[in-house]
Protein backbone atom coordinates (compact mmCIF):
# COMPACT_ATOMS: atom_id res chain seq x y z
CA UNK A 1 0.00 0.00 0.00
CA UNK A 2 1.34 3.38 -0.99
CA UNK A 3 1.18 5.34 2.20
CA UNK A 4 1.40 8.66 0.39
CA UNK A 5 -1.66 8.09 -1.75
CA UNK A 6 -4.69 10.04 -0.62
CA UNK A 7 -8.22 9.08 -1.45
CA UNK A 8 -11.02 11.59 -1.88
CA UNK A 9 -14.17 10.53 -0.04
CA UNK A 10 -17.48 12.35 0.39
CA UNK A 11 -17.74 13.20 4.07
CA UNK A 12 -20.99 13.02 6.05
CA UNK A 13 -21.98 16.06 8.06
CA UNK A 14 -19.98 16.73 11.20
CA UNK A 15 -23.11 16.31 13.28
CA UNK A 16 -23.60 12.83 11.83
CA UNK A 17 -20.02 11.90 12.56
CA UNK A 18 -20.30 13.18 16.10
CA UNK A 19 -23.42 11.10 16.58
CA UNK A 20 -21.63 8.10 15.15
CA UNK A 21 -18.70 8.64 17.48
CA UNK A 22 -21.02 9.03 20.46
CA UNK A 23 -22.77 5.82 19.47
CA UNK A 24 -19.47 3.98 19.29
CA UNK A 25 -18.69 5.30 22.75
CA UNK A 26 -21.99 4.01 24.07
CA UNK A 27 -23.14 7.51 24.87
CA UNK A 28 -26.45 7.51 23.00
CA UNK A 29 -29.77 6.65 24.54
CA UNK A 30 -31.38 3.43 23.36
CA UNK A 31 -33.69 5.17 20.89
CA UNK A 32 -30.88 7.23 19.38
CA UNK A 33 -28.69 4.15 19.18
CA UNK A 34 -31.42 2.25 17.38
CA UNK A 35 -31.84 5.11 14.95
CA UNK A 36 -28.10 5.12 14.30
CA UNK A 37 -28.13 1.41 13.50
CA UNK A 38 -31.01 1.98 11.10
CA UNK A 39 -29.13 4.81 9.43
CA UNK A 40 -26.02 2.71 9.09
CA UNK A 41 -27.98 -0.01 7.35
CA UNK A 42 -29.02 2.42 4.65
CA UNK A 43 -26.12 4.86 4.41
CA UNK A 44 -23.10 3.34 2.71
CA UNK A 45 -20.83 6.33 3.30
CA UNK A 46 -21.68 6.47 6.96
CA UNK A 47 -20.81 2.78 7.12
CA UNK A 48 -17.41 3.51 5.63
CA UNK A 49 -16.77 6.00 8.41
CA UNK A 50 -18.12 3.60 10.98
CA UNK A 51 -15.60 1.01 9.83
CA UNK A 52 -12.83 3.58 9.75
CA UNK A 53 -13.57 4.83 13.25
CA UNK A 54 -13.77 1.30 14.55
CA UNK A 55 -10.53 0.23 12.95
CA UNK A 56 -8.76 3.36 14.11
CA UNK A 57 -10.01 2.81 17.62
CA UNK A 58 -8.98 -0.82 17.55
CA UNK A 59 -5.58 0.11 16.23
CA UNK A 60 -5.00 2.56 19.04
CA UNK A 61 -6.30 0.23 21.70
CA UNK A 62 -4.87 -3.06 20.70
CA UNK A 63 -2.35 -4.48 18.29
CA UNK A 64 -4.08 -7.83 18.41
CA UNK A 65 -7.54 -6.57 17.62
CA UNK A 66 -6.20 -4.31 14.89
CA UNK A 67 -4.58 -7.31 13.35
CA UNK A 68 -8.06 -8.72 12.78
CA UNK A 69 -8.46 -6.00 10.18
CA UNK A 70 -5.09 -6.12 8.54
CA UNK A 71 -1.62 -7.07 9.60
CA UNK A 72 0.50 -4.28 11.07
CA UNK A 73 -2.37 -1.83 10.96
CA UNK A 74 -1.71 -0.62 14.46
CA UNK A 75 1.89 0.11 13.59
CA UNK A 76 0.87 1.89 10.40
CA UNK A 77 -1.63 4.04 12.25
CA UNK A 78 0.91 4.93 14.85
CA UNK A 79 3.54 5.71 12.23
CA UNK A 80 1.07 7.91 10.38
CA UNK A 81 0.35 9.81 13.55
CA UNK A 82 4.02 10.05 14.40
CA UNK A 83 4.76 11.56 10.99
CA UNK A 84 2.15 14.28 11.31
CA UNK A 85 3.08 17.71 12.68
CA UNK A 86 0.55 17.65 15.44
CA UNK A 87 0.44 18.40 19.11
CA UNK A 88 -1.46 15.21 19.73
CA UNK A 89 0.48 12.41 21.32
CA UNK A 90 -0.38 9.06 19.80
CA UNK A 91 0.05 7.39 23.12
CA UNK A 92 -2.49 9.70 24.65
CA UNK A 93 -5.20 8.91 22.14
CA UNK A 94 -7.64 6.32 23.25
CA UNK A 95 -9.82 4.96 20.51
CA UNK A 96 -12.82 7.05 21.45
CA UNK A 97 -10.74 10.19 21.70
CA UNK A 98 -9.27 9.55 18.30
CA UNK A 99 -12.67 9.05 16.79
CA UNK A 100 -14.00 12.17 18.42
CA UNK A 101 -11.14 14.21 17.07
CA UNK A 102 -11.65 12.75 13.66
CA UNK A 103 -15.37 13.25 13.89
CA UNK A 104 -15.18 16.88 14.83
CA UNK A 105 -12.28 17.67 12.58
CA UNK A 106 -10.92 20.16 15.10
CA UNK A 107 -7.25 20.67 14.42
CA UNK A 108 -6.71 17.07 13.67
CA UNK A 109 -5.07 17.02 10.31
CA UNK A 110 -2.95 14.19 11.53
CA UNK A 111 -5.82 11.97 12.46
CA UNK A 112 -7.81 12.83 9.35
CA UNK A 113 -4.79 12.16 7.20
CA UNK A 114 -4.29 8.89 8.97
CA UNK A 115 -7.82 7.86 8.10
CA UNK A 116 -7.50 8.83 4.47
CA UNK A 117 -3.99 7.58 3.94
CA UNK A 118 -3.90 4.47 6.02
CA UNK A 119 -7.21 3.22 7.28
CA UNK A 120 -9.55 3.59 4.33
CA UNK A 121 -7.14 2.10 1.79
CA UNK A 122 -6.40 -0.68 4.23
CA UNK A 123 -10.07 -1.37 4.63
CA UNK A 124 -10.46 -1.74 0.91
CA UNK A 125 -7.44 -3.97 0.79
CA UNK A 126 -8.71 -6.10 3.62
CA UNK A 127 -12.02 -6.63 1.88
CA UNK A 128 -10.23 -8.39 -0.91
CA UNK A 129 -8.24 -10.61 1.37
CA UNK A 130 -9.27 -13.51 3.49
CA UNK A 131 -10.79 -12.18 6.71
CA UNK A 132 -7.99 -13.59 8.81
CA UNK A 133 -5.11 -13.17 6.40
CA UNK A 134 -2.01 -12.13 8.24
CA UNK A 135 -3.75 -12.17 11.57
CA UNK A 136 -1.77 -13.56 14.48
CA UNK A 137 -5.11 -14.63 15.91
CA UNK A 138 -5.71 -16.81 12.90
CA UNK A 139 -2.32 -18.36 13.43
CA UNK A 140 -3.07 -19.35 16.98
CA UNK A 141 -6.83 -19.65 17.19
CA UNK A 142 -9.13 -21.15 14.54
CA UNK A 143 -11.56 -18.29 14.66
CA UNK A 144 -12.62 -18.32 11.02
CA UNK A 145 -15.90 -20.00 10.20
CA UNK A 146 -15.13 -21.45 6.80
CA UNK A 147 -18.70 -22.49 6.13
CA UNK A 148 -20.21 -19.12 6.86
CA UNK A 149 -21.35 -16.87 4.06
CA UNK A 150 -19.60 -13.53 3.55
CA UNK A 151 -20.81 -11.19 6.27
CA UNK A 152 -23.49 -8.76 5.40
CA UNK A 153 -22.86 -5.30 6.73
CA UNK A 154 -25.92 -5.27 8.98
CA UNK A 155 -24.76 -8.45 10.65
CA UNK A 156 -21.32 -7.01 11.34
CA UNK A 157 -22.85 -3.85 12.70
CA UNK A 158 -25.22 -5.78 14.89
CA UNK A 159 -22.43 -7.93 16.23
CA UNK A 160 -20.23 -4.99 17.12
CA UNK A 161 -22.98 -2.99 18.70
CA UNK A 162 -24.31 -5.80 20.83
CA UNK A 163 -21.18 -7.59 22.02
CA UNK A 164 -20.52 -4.99 24.69
CA UNK A 165 -23.81 -5.87 26.35
CA UNK A 166 -22.84 -9.53 26.57
CA UNK A 167 -19.37 -8.82 27.88
CA UNK A 168 -20.76 -6.57 30.59
CA UNK A 169 -23.46 -9.01 31.60
CA UNK A 170 -20.87 -11.78 31.69
CA UNK A 171 -18.59 -9.73 33.90
CA UNK A 172 -21.37 -9.03 36.38
CA UNK A 173 -22.16 -12.66 37.08
CA UNK A 174 -19.11 -14.67 36.16
CA UNK A 175 -17.01 -16.38 38.76
CA UNK A 176 -13.46 -15.31 39.25
CA UNK A 177 -10.55 -17.37 38.18
CA UNK A 178 -7.23 -17.35 39.87
CA UNK A 179 -7.14 -13.58 39.72
CA UNK A 180 -8.62 -11.21 42.29
CA UNK A 181 -12.20 -10.32 41.49
CA UNK A 182 -11.25 -6.69 40.82
CA UNK A 183 -9.47 -7.80 37.69
CA UNK A 184 -12.78 -7.89 35.83
CA UNK A 185 -13.18 -4.19 36.45
CA UNK A 186 -9.57 -3.45 35.66
CA UNK A 187 -9.97 -5.28 32.37
CA UNK A 188 -12.99 -3.21 31.47
CA UNK A 189 -11.56 0.12 32.59
CA UNK A 190 -10.89 1.10 28.98
CA UNK A 191 -14.49 0.56 27.90
CA UNK A 192 -16.69 3.51 27.05
CA UNK A 193 -18.68 5.01 29.91
CA UNK A 194 -22.15 3.64 30.25
Amino acid sequence: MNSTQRTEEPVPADSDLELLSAWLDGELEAAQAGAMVDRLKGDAMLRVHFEAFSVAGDAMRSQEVAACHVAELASRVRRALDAEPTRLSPGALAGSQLRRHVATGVGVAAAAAMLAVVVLPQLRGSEMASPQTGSPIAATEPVANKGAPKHSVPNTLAARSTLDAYFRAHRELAATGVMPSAVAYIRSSGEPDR
Partner: protein
Amino acid sequence: MSGSGFGRVGWWGASLVGAAFWLAGSAAHGEDGPVDSAAASARGRSPVQWLQAIELAAQRGSYTGTIVYQHGDEVRASRIVHFFDASGPRERVQTLDGRPREFIRQGDQVQCLYPQQHRVVIEHARHRAAFPALGEAGSASVLEHYALQQGDVERVAGVGCQVLKLVPLDTLRYGYRLWVDPGSGLLLKVQMLSSDESVIEQIAFSDVRIGEPISPAQLKPSWSTNGWSVVRRESHATELSRQGWSVTAPDGFRRLTEVERNLENDPTRAALQAVYSDGLATVSVFIEPGAPAVEPEPAQRRGPLSAFTRQVGDARVTVVGDVPPTTARTIAESVRFSADH
Protein backbone atom coordinates in the same frame (compact mmCIF):
# COMPACT_ATOMS: atom_id res chain seq x y z
CA MET B 1 -14.64 -13.02 34.53
CA SER B 2 -15.04 -11.87 37.66
CA GLY B 3 -15.61 -12.02 41.03
CA SER B 4 -16.45 -15.02 42.72
CA GLY B 5 -18.12 -12.74 44.38
CA PHE B 6 -18.29 -9.46 45.67
CA GLY B 7 -19.64 -10.10 49.07
CA ARG B 8 -19.63 -13.79 49.28
CA VAL B 9 -16.87 -16.13 50.09
CA GLY B 10 -15.56 -17.12 46.73
CA TRP B 11 -14.75 -20.56 45.62
CA TRP B 12 -11.16 -19.90 46.34
CA GLY B 13 -12.05 -18.88 49.86
CA ALA B 14 -13.02 -20.40 53.13
CA SER B 15 -10.26 -22.91 53.40
CA LEU B 16 -8.82 -23.36 56.83
CA VAL B 17 -5.83 -24.99 55.30
CA GLY B 18 -5.25 -21.93 53.20
CA ALA B 19 -5.78 -19.70 56.19
CA ALA B 20 -2.76 -21.22 57.76
CA PHE B 21 -0.70 -20.02 54.82
CA TRP B 22 -2.15 -16.55 55.04
CA LEU B 23 -1.54 -16.22 58.74
CA ALA B 24 1.90 -17.64 58.42
CA GLY B 25 2.86 -15.22 55.73
CA SER B 26 1.00 -12.03 56.44
CA ALA B 27 3.97 -10.37 58.01
CA ALA B 28 5.55 -7.67 55.93
CA HIS B 29 8.28 -8.77 53.63
CA GLY B 30 11.69 -7.88 54.76
CA GLU B 31 14.16 -6.30 52.43
CA ASP B 32 16.78 -8.93 53.00
CA GLY B 33 16.68 -11.81 50.63
CA PRO B 34 13.05 -11.93 49.52
CA VAL B 35 13.89 -14.50 46.90
CA ASP B 36 15.49 -16.77 49.46
CA SER B 37 12.60 -16.41 51.85
CA ALA B 38 10.19 -17.13 48.99
CA ALA B 39 11.99 -20.31 48.20
CA ALA B 40 11.84 -21.31 51.84
CA SER B 41 8.12 -20.50 52.09
CA ALA B 42 7.35 -22.49 48.98
CA ARG B 43 9.10 -25.60 50.10
CA GLY B 44 6.90 -28.64 50.32
CA ARG B 45 3.62 -27.07 49.24
CA SER B 46 1.41 -29.35 47.15
CA PRO B 47 -0.49 -28.16 44.05
CA VAL B 48 -3.75 -28.26 45.98
CA GLN B 49 -2.23 -26.24 48.80
CA TRP B 50 -0.94 -23.67 46.34
CA LEU B 51 -4.41 -23.15 44.88
CA GLN B 52 -5.94 -22.92 48.32
CA ALA B 53 -3.41 -20.33 49.41
CA ILE B 54 -4.08 -18.24 46.29
CA GLU B 55 -7.81 -18.53 46.79
CA LEU B 56 -7.72 -17.40 50.34
CA ALA B 57 -5.40 -14.47 49.72
CA ALA B 58 -7.53 -13.18 46.83
CA GLN B 59 -10.62 -13.11 48.98
CA ARG B 60 -9.44 -12.54 52.53
CA GLY B 61 -6.23 -10.68 52.18
CA SER B 62 -5.86 -6.96 52.78
CA TYR B 63 -3.60 -5.12 50.42
CA THR B 64 -3.10 -1.94 48.44
CA GLY B 65 -1.18 -1.41 45.26
CA THR B 66 -1.02 -0.43 41.63
CA ILE B 67 -2.07 -3.01 39.08
CA VAL B 68 -0.97 -2.77 35.47
CA TYR B 69 -3.10 -4.50 32.86
CA GLN B 70 -1.67 -5.28 29.44
CA HIS B 71 -3.26 -6.78 26.36
CA GLY B 72 -1.45 -6.30 23.06
CA ASP B 73 -0.54 -2.62 22.80
CA GLU B 74 -3.11 -1.74 25.40
CA VAL B 75 -1.72 -0.90 28.82
CA ARG B 76 -3.77 0.49 31.67
CA ALA B 77 -3.04 1.09 35.32
CA SER B 78 -5.40 1.01 38.26
CA ARG B 79 -5.04 1.61 41.96
CA ILE B 80 -6.57 -1.05 44.17
CA VAL B 81 -7.41 -1.14 47.86
CA HIS B 82 -8.70 -4.49 49.12
CA PHE B 83 -9.79 -4.95 52.70
CA PHE B 84 -11.32 -7.88 54.50
CA ASP B 85 -12.80 -8.15 57.98
CA ALA B 86 -15.69 -9.91 59.67
CA SER B 87 -18.22 -7.99 57.59
CA GLY B 88 -16.68 -9.28 54.38
CA PRO B 89 -14.50 -7.91 51.63
CA ARG B 90 -14.45 -4.27 50.61
CA GLU B 91 -12.63 -2.95 47.64
CA ARG B 92 -11.94 0.21 45.69
CA VAL B 93 -10.47 0.27 42.20
CA GLN B 94 -9.49 3.60 40.61
CA THR B 95 -8.42 3.89 37.01
CA LEU B 96 -5.23 5.89 36.66
CA ASP B 97 -5.37 6.57 32.94
CA GLY B 98 -8.05 7.10 30.35
CA ARG B 99 -11.41 8.24 31.56
CA PRO B 100 -11.67 8.58 35.34
CA ARG B 101 -13.89 5.99 36.95
CA GLU B 102 -14.01 3.97 40.12
CA PHE B 103 -15.46 0.66 41.19
CA ILE B 104 -16.50 0.43 44.82
CA ARG B 105 -17.39 -2.98 46.18
CA GLN B 106 -19.12 -3.55 49.48
CA GLY B 107 -20.96 -6.68 50.40
CA ASP B 108 -23.08 -7.91 47.51
CA GLN B 109 -22.93 -4.63 45.68
CA VAL B 110 -20.55 -2.99 43.27
CA GLN B 111 -20.92 0.68 42.42
CA CYS B 112 -19.42 1.67 39.08
CA LEU B 113 -18.84 5.43 39.12
CA TYR B 114 -18.66 7.35 35.84
CA PRO B 115 -17.97 10.97 36.82
CA GLN B 116 -18.04 12.38 33.29
CA GLN B 117 -21.54 10.99 32.87
CA HIS B 118 -22.52 11.78 36.47
CA ARG B 119 -23.78 8.22 36.57
CA VAL B 120 -23.58 5.33 39.01
CA VAL B 121 -24.23 1.83 37.77
CA ILE B 122 -25.05 -0.53 40.62
CA GLU B 123 -24.42 -4.21 40.10
CA HIS B 124 -25.77 -6.74 42.58
CA ALA B 125 -24.02 -10.00 43.15
CA ARG B 126 -26.90 -11.94 44.63
CA HIS B 127 -26.76 -14.36 41.74
CA ARG B 128 -23.11 -14.07 40.99
CA ALA B 129 -21.58 -17.42 40.46
CA ALA B 130 -19.73 -19.19 43.23
CA PHE B 131 -17.86 -22.33 42.45
CA PRO B 132 -19.61 -25.02 44.47
CA ALA B 133 -16.63 -26.90 45.75
CA LEU B 134 -14.48 -25.09 48.24
CA GLY B 135 -11.16 -25.92 49.72
CA GLU B 136 -9.40 -29.10 48.84
CA ALA B 137 -12.22 -30.56 46.74
CA GLY B 138 -12.47 -27.44 44.60
CA SER B 139 -8.76 -27.24 44.04
CA ALA B 140 -8.61 -30.93 43.23
CA SER B 141 -11.37 -30.42 40.67
CA VAL B 142 -9.35 -27.69 38.98
CA LEU B 143 -6.36 -29.99 38.85
CA GLU B 144 -8.35 -32.60 36.92
CA HIS B 145 -8.16 -30.25 33.93
CA TYR B 146 -4.94 -28.34 34.52
CA ALA B 147 -1.50 -29.52 35.53
CA LEU B 148 0.27 -27.30 38.04
CA GLN B 149 3.99 -26.93 37.45
CA GLN B 150 6.25 -25.20 39.90
CA GLY B 151 8.91 -22.96 38.41
CA ASP B 152 11.60 -20.64 39.66
CA VAL B 153 11.42 -17.80 42.13
CA GLU B 154 11.24 -14.36 40.50
CA ARG B 155 10.71 -10.87 41.85
CA VAL B 156 7.52 -8.91 41.16
CA ALA B 157 6.98 -5.47 42.70
CA GLY B 158 10.00 -6.14 44.87
CA VAL B 159 8.62 -9.38 46.27
CA GLY B 160 10.20 -12.74 45.63
CA CYS B 161 7.44 -14.80 44.04
CA GLN B 162 7.04 -18.46 43.28
CA VAL B 163 6.28 -18.96 39.59
CA LEU B 164 3.55 -21.50 38.93
CA LYS B 165 2.14 -22.65 35.64
CA LEU B 166 -1.31 -24.09 35.11
CA VAL B 167 -1.17 -26.08 31.90
CA PRO B 168 -4.54 -27.07 30.41
CA LEU B 169 -4.87 -30.78 29.77
CA ASP B 170 -6.96 -30.22 26.62
CA THR B 171 -7.56 -27.51 24.04
CA LEU B 172 -10.79 -26.27 25.62
CA ARG B 173 -9.06 -23.80 27.94
CA TYR B 174 -6.26 -21.31 28.15
CA GLY B 175 -3.23 -21.76 30.37
CA TYR B 176 -1.97 -19.47 33.11
CA ARG B 177 1.39 -18.47 34.51
CA LEU B 178 1.23 -17.17 38.06
CA TRP B 179 3.64 -15.29 40.26
CA VAL B 180 2.59 -15.92 43.85
CA ASP B 181 3.85 -14.27 47.01
CA PRO B 182 4.52 -17.44 48.99
CA GLY B 183 4.00 -15.73 52.31
CA SER B 184 0.55 -14.29 51.74
CA GLY B 185 -0.56 -16.39 48.78
CA LEU B 186 -1.42 -13.21 46.90
CA LEU B 187 -1.05 -13.30 43.14
CA LEU B 188 1.25 -10.49 42.13
CA LYS B 189 1.33 -11.28 38.44
CA VAL B 190 -0.82 -13.39 36.13
CA GLN B 191 -0.44 -14.21 32.47
CA MET B 192 -3.12 -15.91 30.42
CA LEU B 193 -1.52 -18.09 27.77
CA SER B 194 -2.73 -19.36 24.42
CA SER B 195 -2.07 -22.88 23.18
CA ASP B 196 1.28 -21.78 21.71
CA GLU B 197 2.12 -20.13 25.04
CA SER B 198 1.90 -16.59 23.72
CA VAL B 199 0.60 -14.15 26.30
CA ILE B 200 -3.04 -13.20 25.74
CA GLU B 201 -3.11 -10.75 28.61
CA GLN B 202 -1.18 -10.07 31.75
CA ILE B 203 -1.93 -8.33 34.98
CA ALA B 204 0.74 -7.42 37.49
CA PHE B 205 1.26 -5.33 40.57
CA SER B 206 3.86 -2.64 40.04
CA ASP B 207 3.80 -1.87 43.74
CA VAL B 208 2.03 -3.60 46.58
CA ARG B 209 1.65 -3.42 50.32
CA ILE B 210 0.31 -6.54 51.96
CA GLY B 211 -1.22 -6.80 55.40
CA GLU B 212 -0.75 -3.17 56.35
CA PRO B 213 -3.52 -1.16 58.06
CA ILE B 214 -6.14 0.31 55.72
CA SER B 215 -8.19 3.32 56.76
CA PRO B 216 -11.89 3.68 55.86
CA ALA B 217 -11.04 6.80 53.85
CA GLN B 218 -9.03 4.67 51.44
CA LEU B 219 -12.18 2.79 50.51
CA LYS B 220 -14.38 5.82 49.87
CA PRO B 221 -15.09 7.08 46.34
CA SER B 222 -13.33 10.19 45.11
CA TRP B 223 -16.55 12.00 44.25
CA SER B 224 -19.83 12.79 45.89
CA THR B 225 -22.54 11.12 43.84
CA ASN B 226 -25.32 13.43 44.95
CA GLY B 227 -27.44 14.30 41.95
CA TRP B 228 -25.94 11.59 39.75
CA SER B 229 -28.22 9.30 37.80
CA VAL B 230 -28.41 5.78 39.19
CA VAL B 231 -28.75 2.68 37.02
CA ARG B 232 -29.41 -0.65 38.71
CA ARG B 233 -28.57 -3.94 37.03
CA GLU B 234 -31.01 -6.58 38.18
CA SER B 235 -31.33 -10.28 37.54
CA HIS B 236 -33.62 -13.00 38.86
CA ALA B 237 -32.87 -16.67 39.43
CA THR B 238 -34.46 -19.09 37.01
CA GLU B 239 -33.98 -22.57 35.55
CA LEU B 240 -33.33 -22.87 31.85
CA SER B 241 -34.66 -26.43 31.77
CA ARG B 242 -38.09 -25.24 32.92
CA GLN B 243 -38.21 -23.11 29.83
CA GLY B 244 -37.18 -25.95 27.54
CA TRP B 245 -33.50 -25.09 27.16
CA SER B 246 -30.53 -27.36 27.65
CA VAL B 247 -26.80 -26.64 27.43
CA THR B 248 -24.11 -29.30 27.32
CA ALA B 249 -20.95 -27.81 28.74
CA PRO B 250 -17.53 -29.34 28.07
CA ASP B 251 -15.94 -31.68 30.55
CA GLY B 252 -15.01 -29.92 33.76
CA PHE B 253 -17.36 -26.95 33.35
CA ARG B 254 -20.03 -26.80 36.03
CA ARG B 255 -23.20 -24.75 35.91
CA LEU B 256 -22.94 -22.05 38.55
CA THR B 257 -26.00 -19.88 38.09
CA GLU B 258 -28.99 -19.29 35.81
CA VAL B 259 -30.83 -15.97 35.71
CA GLU B 260 -33.33 -13.92 33.76
CA ARG B 261 -32.31 -10.35 33.02
CA ASN B 262 -32.57 -7.48 30.59
CA LEU B 263 -29.33 -6.79 28.79
CA GLU B 264 -28.19 -3.19 29.33
CA ASN B 265 -31.43 -2.63 31.27
CA ASP B 266 -33.21 -2.53 27.93
CA PRO B 267 -36.73 -3.94 28.42
CA THR B 268 -36.74 -5.10 24.81
CA ARG B 269 -33.66 -7.27 25.39
CA ALA B 270 -34.86 -9.98 27.78
CA ALA B 271 -32.33 -12.77 28.08
CA LEU B 272 -31.61 -15.95 29.97
CA GLN B 273 -28.03 -16.22 31.20
CA ALA B 274 -26.36 -19.39 32.41
CA VAL B 275 -22.83 -19.28 33.82
CA TYR B 276 -20.40 -22.20 33.73
CA SER B 277 -16.88 -22.49 35.11
CA ASP B 278 -14.15 -25.06 35.32
CA GLY B 279 -12.74 -23.24 38.32
CA LEU B 280 -10.49 -20.97 36.27
CA ALA B 281 -12.26 -20.13 33.04
CA THR B 282 -15.85 -18.88 33.08
CA VAL B 283 -18.41 -18.91 30.29
CA SER B 284 -21.83 -17.28 30.00
CA VAL B 285 -24.55 -18.61 27.71
CA PHE B 286 -27.13 -15.98 26.71
CA ILE B 287 -30.46 -17.03 25.21
CA GLU B 288 -32.69 -14.31 23.77
CA PRO B 289 -36.03 -15.70 22.59
CA GLY B 290 -37.53 -13.58 19.85
CA ALA B 291 -34.39 -11.53 19.22
CA PRO B 292 -33.80 -10.57 15.59
CA ALA B 293 -32.23 -13.43 13.68
CA VAL B 294 -28.50 -13.29 13.05
CA GLU B 295 -26.52 -14.62 10.14
CA PRO B 296 -23.74 -17.14 10.83
CA GLU B 297 -20.39 -15.54 11.40
CA PRO B 298 -17.05 -16.50 12.96
CA ALA B 299 -16.35 -16.25 16.64
CA GLN B 300 -15.31 -12.81 17.86
CA ARG B 301 -12.46 -12.08 20.24
CA ARG B 302 -11.89 -9.14 22.53
CA GLY B 303 -8.95 -9.37 24.84
CA PRO B 304 -9.14 -12.71 26.57
CA LEU B 305 -12.85 -13.07 25.86
CA SER B 306 -14.34 -14.99 22.97
CA ALA B 307 -17.90 -14.74 21.73
CA PHE B 308 -19.93 -16.86 19.35
CA THR B 309 -23.53 -16.26 18.26
CA ARG B 310 -25.94 -18.58 16.49
CA GLN B 311 -29.65 -18.91 15.97
CA VAL B 312 -31.62 -21.69 17.66
CA GLY B 313 -35.22 -21.61 16.48
CA ASP B 314 -36.47 -18.11 17.15
CA ALA B 315 -33.82 -17.45 19.79
CA ARG B 316 -30.41 -15.87 19.51
CA VAL B 317 -27.80 -17.83 21.47
CA THR B 318 -24.53 -16.10 22.38
CA VAL B 319 -21.67 -17.65 24.32
CA VAL B 320 -19.06 -15.39 25.93
CA GLY B 321 -16.12 -16.40 28.07
CA ASP B 322 -12.39 -16.41 28.68
CA VAL B 323 -11.94 -19.54 26.63
CA PRO B 324 -10.64 -20.21 23.11
CA PRO B 325 -13.12 -19.32 20.36
CA THR B 326 -13.61 -22.98 19.49
CA THR B 327 -14.82 -23.68 23.02
CA ALA B 328 -17.33 -20.84 22.85
CA ARG B 329 -18.59 -22.21 19.57
CA THR B 330 -18.80 -25.77 20.87
CA ILE B 331 -20.91 -24.65 23.81
CA ALA B 332 -23.15 -22.52 21.60
CA GLU B 333 -23.72 -25.45 19.28
CA SER B 334 -24.74 -27.65 22.21
CA VAL B 335 -27.73 -25.45 23.07
CA ARG B 336 -31.05 -27.17 22.40
CA PHE B 337 -34.68 -26.25 22.84
CA SER B 338 -37.45 -28.74 23.46
CA ALA B 339 -41.08 -27.70 23.47
CA ASP B 340 -41.90 -30.85 25.45
CA HIS B 341 -40.23 -29.77 28.66
